[in-house]
C-alpha cells in the first residue's frame, strides 16, 4: 500500500517536471525566435556589434555642433 502511494507521488513529480520543462523551454525558444526574426533586435542587443558600427558612423558623420554657442542655455 505504502509502496503504491510512493509510486504515485513519484509519477506526480515526473509530470510536474515535464510541465515545468515544457514552459521553460517554450519561454526561451520564443525569445530566441523573436531575436532570430529581427535583424534590429540581433544588432541592437549586441554591444560589440554596436561599438563597431558606431565607430564607422562617427567617422562618416562626426557630431556637429556650432562652436559659436556661448553662455548658459
Amino acid at each position, binding site marked *: 500500500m505504502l509502496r503504491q502511494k510512493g509510486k504515485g507521488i513519484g509519477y506526480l513529480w515526473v509530470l510536474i517536471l515535464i510541465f515545468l520543462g515544457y514552459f521553460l523551454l517554450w519561454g526561451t525558444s520564443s*525569445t530566441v525566435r*523573436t*531575436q532570430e*526574426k*529581427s*535583424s*534590429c*533586435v540581433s*544588432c*541592437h*542587443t549586441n*554591444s560589440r556589434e*554596436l*561599438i563597431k*558600427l*558606431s565607430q564607422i*558612423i*562617427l567617422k562618416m558623420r562626426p*557630431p*556637429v*555642433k*556650432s*562652436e*559659436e*554657442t*556661448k*553662455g*548658459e*542655455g
Partner: protein
Amino acid sequence: MAPLELYEKVLVEDEFLETDHGQIPCVDCHGGNPDDSNWETAHKGVIKDPTFPDASKVCGDCHEDIVKLGKSSLHVSLLPYRVIMDRRATPDESVKKAIDKAMGNHCMGCHSSCGQCHVSRPDSVDGGFVQGHNFMKTPPMATNCTSCHGSRLEKEFTGKNPGIPGDVHFVKKNMQCVSCHKAGEMHGDGKEYQSMHDVASGPKCVDCHQDAGKATSKKKVHRLHYETVSCTVCHSLQYKHCYGCHVGKDSKGLPYYQTEKTIMDFKIGLNSTITKERPYKFITVRHVPTNPGLFDYYVKDGLKNFDRVPTWKPTTPHNIQLKTPQNKSCKKCHKKKRLFLTEEDVEAEEREANRSVMVPESEIPTKTKKR
C-alpha cells in the same frame, strides 16, 4: 550628467524584450526594414522618436486618454514661448514667418514627448536610452528632468550654486521633481495654458503645508503675509538670472545661441497677474535670457513690441529653506530696498517692459505695523 557613447544610446537590454512593450515588433513603432541585414539600408525611413509630434499611432491604442490630453502638455507644445513671442513680434506676416523659422531652429527643439520622458533622454541633450529601451513609469530626475532644467533649477535644487545650499526638500527629504510635479501636470489636462503658472494641477506649497496658507494659521507671520507675499519671497535664497540671447547660424550653417551675463541675486517684484490662486502682491522674479535683438539674424527689428512682456518673470526658485536671510526678522525685509526690483535694477532699454513688475519706492514696505 555625462554624455552617452553613441553605441550606449541605442543598446537594447535583453530584459526589455520580455516586457509588454518589448513584445511589439520594432518596425511597428520605428519603421525601417527588419529583414535587411545591411544596417544602412535597413535604417532607411527609421523614426527615432515615434512619439513626437503625434503619439497617437504608437501610444494611443493602449494609452488613449493620456495621448489625447498630452497634446496640451506644455512640455510638448511649448505654447507659452509662442504666446510671448507672438506678443513681442512686429505685427507683420513676413516678420512672423521669419520668427517662426528662428524659433524652429533654436527654441522649439527643447520640447519633450512620451518617449523622451519614459524611454530616452531628451533630444535636446542628444538622446539615448536611459535603461536599454525599458519604459520607465517615472522619468528619472537626473537623466530626464534636469537634463533640460539644469542651468537654473537643478543647480538651485541640488545646491550646486557655490555658497548656496540646496532645497530643503531635496537635501533633507530627498524629494525628486515628481514628488511635487505629478503626472497630471506633466501630461496636460486638455487646456491650452498660456503660462505654466496657470496650470491647474501645478504644485502649490499649501498642498502639503496647509496651515501656512490660512488666515487662521498657527504662525503669526503666515497670518500676516499669506495673501500678500508668495511663499518663495520669504523661503528662497539667491537664484540665477540670465541676460541677453542672440541666435544665428555659423559659417557652416549650424545653429548657435549666445547668452550674456549670468548673476546670482534675489529680487522681489510686483505680481502683475493676480489670480485667485496667486493673490500675492509681492512675488520672486527672475530675469530671463532675452533681448530685443534676439532674432536679428533672421529679421531686423522683428520684436518691435518687445515691451509688451516683462523680461523679469514670476519665478519659483527651487532652493527653499525654512530660515533665510530675509525672514530672520521683520527688519531684514521691510525697508530693505536692495531686495526689491526697482528701476535701478532694470536696464534702461527694458524699463518699459518691466513697468508692471518693478516695485516703486513708495510700495516697498517701510514699517512693520503692530497688529
